[in-house]
């Protein structure tokens, strides 16, 4: 198999031009998704039963269906309704890039909400009792005891989800967003040189993946306590555990 360096170089350049779009999709969807997930998990553990069920329904919907169908529903499905086209949301939904970000964010919020809930569940009840005994309540209890422990517990699963988001951005190519996978597919459709193009695209994604994993590992080290944590060890990885509603 002859290796065409010029072609590979040219392909790499074309793919790198699409890299900023991939990064934008990734960063925006992670940011919006995290915020949305915080809202959903707050609904999930609040006192009102109806809101809890609403959150459960949201999580089931977005974890149970493929991202692809969600993206198509949002991009093509919503735009069929004249009410949507006249609404103030239309400028955002009209653009493929922002529409893709919304679809990605909605999907990841479902997964992240479950991850955050797992983190909350991992807070040992003894610590909460101790906090209450010391006189803490409400927001102070949350800020000093619950949130730090929950965050540390769910960080591995959250990192996994972030890496999955990186890969999910490739689906935006199916709604006319010119990110790396989309450009790669177009080059293949025109030149029929499958292997070289995919090696280039795979290389770019692997480098990105490596950088993100490194960054998250550094964050985990920064956030882990100096002395061993007394929380009960879990054998489940939350991102992969069977969803129980």
């Amino acid at each position: 198999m002859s290796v065409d360096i010029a072609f590979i170089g040219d392909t790499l350049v074309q793919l790198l031009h699409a890299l900023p779009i991939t990064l934008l999709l990734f960063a925006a969807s992670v940011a919006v998704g995290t915020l949305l997930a915080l809202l959903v998990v707050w609904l999930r553990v609040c006192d009102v039963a109806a809101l809890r069920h609403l959150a459960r329904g949201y999580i089931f919907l977005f974890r149970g269906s493929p991202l692809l169908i969600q993206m198509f529903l949002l991009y093509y499905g919503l735009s069929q309704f004249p009410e949507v086209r006249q609404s103030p949301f239309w400028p955002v939904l009209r653009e493929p890039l922002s529409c893709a970000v919304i679809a990605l964010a909605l999907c990841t919020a479902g997964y992240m909400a479950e991850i955050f809930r797992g983190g909350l569940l991992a807070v040992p009840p003894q610590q909460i009792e101790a906090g209450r005994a010391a006189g803490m309540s409400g927001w102070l209890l949350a800020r000093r005891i619950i949130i730090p422990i929950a965050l540390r517990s769910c960080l591995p699963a959250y990192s996994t989800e972030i890496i999955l988001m990186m890969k999910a951005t490739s689906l935006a190519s199916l709604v006319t967003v010119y990110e790396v996978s989309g450009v790669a597919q177009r080059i293949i459709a025109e030149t029929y040189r499958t292997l070289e193009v995919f090696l280039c695209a795979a290389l770019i994604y692997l480098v990105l993946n490596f950088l993100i994993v490194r960054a998250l590992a550094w964050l985990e080290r920064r956030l882990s306590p100096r002395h061993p944590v007394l929380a009960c060890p879990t054998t489940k990885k939350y991102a992969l555990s069977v969803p129980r509603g």
Partner: protein
Amino acid sequence: MAARAAAWAGRSLTRLEVGLQVIDLIGFGAKGWGGVLLLAALMTVLVTLAAMAVGAVLGALVAAAKLHPNALLRVLGEGYTTVFRGIPELLVIYLFFYGGSALVSSVGGLFGAEGFISMPAFLVGALAVGVVSGAYQAEVYRGAFQAVSRSELEAAKAIGMPLMLRFRRIIAPQILRFALPGIGGVWQISLKDSALISVTGLVELMRASRVAAASTGQFVLFFMTGCALYLVLTGISNLVLSRAELRVGRTFRRS
């Protein structure tokens, strides 16, 4: 008053008509796409099962490699999981689809096969999703193996249990118990990755929804129906896996 009632009746009738049209489209009549969608859902389940089987084999091999004392095997295993958990599934499916058939044909040619060996879309899709699920399953098996209690193994060695018996009585059941939640998660992931196989032409649920939507122009209806069918599949999987977890964890005390 009467005019308002008449207007309301008119609107209800139109809604009823639209409702009947919808049932017509997703039903099983001559114009109904219901049969196609259900068959496609079945295909989705079948291809995911095949992918999980491929992934189980690959995952077990790679997990064994990662736990091996030999450094080279560990590096290879690590490389496999890093690559196939780091590349988007869409790219893997494209690679197998565009490149795979030609590769198999040329390999078949070496064995003297006449003409072209056609790789069915099912196989391409199952292999692609299987290879990716293998990377995830490797991690699950590795974690499950490491969770087996060392003291139990030592005790078994101490009373003279041979390796195969140790494996059959102690290691395997415990790995099954620890891995089941993780494998359940990988099943869910693979079920959704199977939607990407639509690019290979296999008539699974995603492709059936797209074709129905394109043929009738009713994008929302058919995408929502497809989505609902996926939710049904996921829901049933949840139930089955929860039951299985309870059954497998039956003899273990809740710690």
